[in-house]
């Protein structure tokens, strides 16, 4: 087996929470509001249980092959060459995902915080930190996420509570006036953006120690993460209104700039930015780790550690090339990105699960004696 370290259940749940919240904290309100307008808070809350169902589907698929990661699973379910092709599609998603999150960090920092710094420098610094984390292995990532998760949670709670004086319920009216198509698109986005992008977790699930309540804890973590995101959407709708939420790329950042209690407790947007950076860091790290382990598995290598440096260089290159401008990644690509996420997060794992269930059903119906012995 490639990875020697083992994660505990608590580390796995904190990693999943980080991946659900990470990178979505800033852009999710704007994306979901562009589809469902002032009703997006309803869509976000409907998406919470559906996202938990999706997470349960991932876990069900992994529990059928508890010792195998996604590449091995695809090869043993679909056969060698179709499985290889399937895995290549996923690996492309992983490397593009890692580069996209890096690029988003660069775009955010250069437009909001460091306007005079070239974006390449920020991307280089972020990539160095990611490579440092990945080269220390899976256990280190799990433990550091355990350490840093309270920072993220505390700040989200502070943001939600400090904005309570500024809410205005007139912003939510008229309720359910947006049509069935927009609402269903909003629900799809609310499932696929937070939970569908947790799909690289299937690369690390075989390296998690078997403990009691693992399934329950993971599903609760995913539900909590999307609940936090739904709360953020609701608050940004209540404070900013649908129009401003839709047209601010970084709605949560604007929200934290609006915090002002007694003209004393204000200007805390840098803390918001750092909590977003922490969660995005874990998401990018898991994506890069999934890419590296997947590559090593695809070519049947004996170890994966030596691929960390060239893969980080690849992330640096791709993060700069991936979008010609800031509008490309937040406006032009969004409809296609939703389709791509739907394919990778719902349709393809669903197909794998169906094929696996059919195979095991046929095996048990053809040879009932063997299955009872196993």
């Amino acid at each position, binding site marked *: 087996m490639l990875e020697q370290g083992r994660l505990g259940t608590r580390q796995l749940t904190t990693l999943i929470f980080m991946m659900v919240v990470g990178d979505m904290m800033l852009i999710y309100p704007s994306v979901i509001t562009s589809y469902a307008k002032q009703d997006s808070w309803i869509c976000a809350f409907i998406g919470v249980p559906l996202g938990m169902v999706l997470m349960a589907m991932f876990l069900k698929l992994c529990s059928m092959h508890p010792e195998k990661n996604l590449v091995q699973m695809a090869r043993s379910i679909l056969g060698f060459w179709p499985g290889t092709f399937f895995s290549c599609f996923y690996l492309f998603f992983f490397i593009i995902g890692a580069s996209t999150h890096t690029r988003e960090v660069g775009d955010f920092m250069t437009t909001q915080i460091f306007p005079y710094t070239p974006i*390449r420098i920020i991307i280089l610094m972020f990539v160095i930190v990611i490579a440092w984390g990945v080269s220390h292995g899976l256990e280190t990532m799990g433990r550091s996420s355990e350490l840093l998760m309270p920072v993220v949670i505390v700040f989200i709670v502070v943001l939600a509570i400090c904005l309570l004086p500024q809410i205005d319920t007139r912003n939510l009216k008229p309720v359910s006036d947006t049509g069935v198509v927009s609402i269903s698109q909003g629900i799809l986005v609310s499932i696929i953006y937070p939970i569908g992008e947790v799909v690289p977790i299937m690369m690390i699930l075989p390296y998690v120690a078997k403990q009691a309540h693992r399934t329950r804890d993971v599903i609760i973590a995913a539900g909590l993460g999307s609940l936090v995101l739904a709360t953020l959407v609701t608050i940004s709708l209540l404070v900013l209104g649908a129009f401003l939420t839709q047209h601010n790329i970084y709605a949560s950042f604007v929200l934290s700039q609006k915090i002002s209690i007694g003209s004393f407790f204000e200007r805390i947007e840098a803390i918001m930015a750092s909590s977003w950076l922490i969660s995005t860091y874990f998401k990018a790290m898991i994506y890069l780790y999934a890419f590296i382990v997947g590559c090593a598995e695809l070519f049947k290598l004996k*170890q994966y550690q030596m691929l960390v440096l060239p893969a980080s260089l690849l992330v*640096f290159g791709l993060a700069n090339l991936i979008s010609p401008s800031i509008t490309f990644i937040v406006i032009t690509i969004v409809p296609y990105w939703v389709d791509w996420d739907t394919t990778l997060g719902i349709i393809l794992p669903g197909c794998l699960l169906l094929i696996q269930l059919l195979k095991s059903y046929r095996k048990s119906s053809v040879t009932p004696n063997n299955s009872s012995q196993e």
Partner: protein
Amino acid sequence: MLITITVIVIGGLVGLFDLPGLIRRKEWRETAVYSGMLVIATGFSVIAANLWDFPSPLYIIMWIYEPVNQFLAHLTGT
């Protein structure tokens, strides 16, 4: 030009760091994958560091999903 040379030197240093061990242990498959990835990564990084124009890899995704999106839009009437 200086930037290009810097990036290529960094790529070479990364190679120097890992490749001798791989070759000494006669892990040829690892060496092939490693060198392929390193060459691609150095090429992309040279383009990126010089800010040359290069088509984004996401155009592949747009090309794949353009018919799907048009069909869905036709179906839902938006």
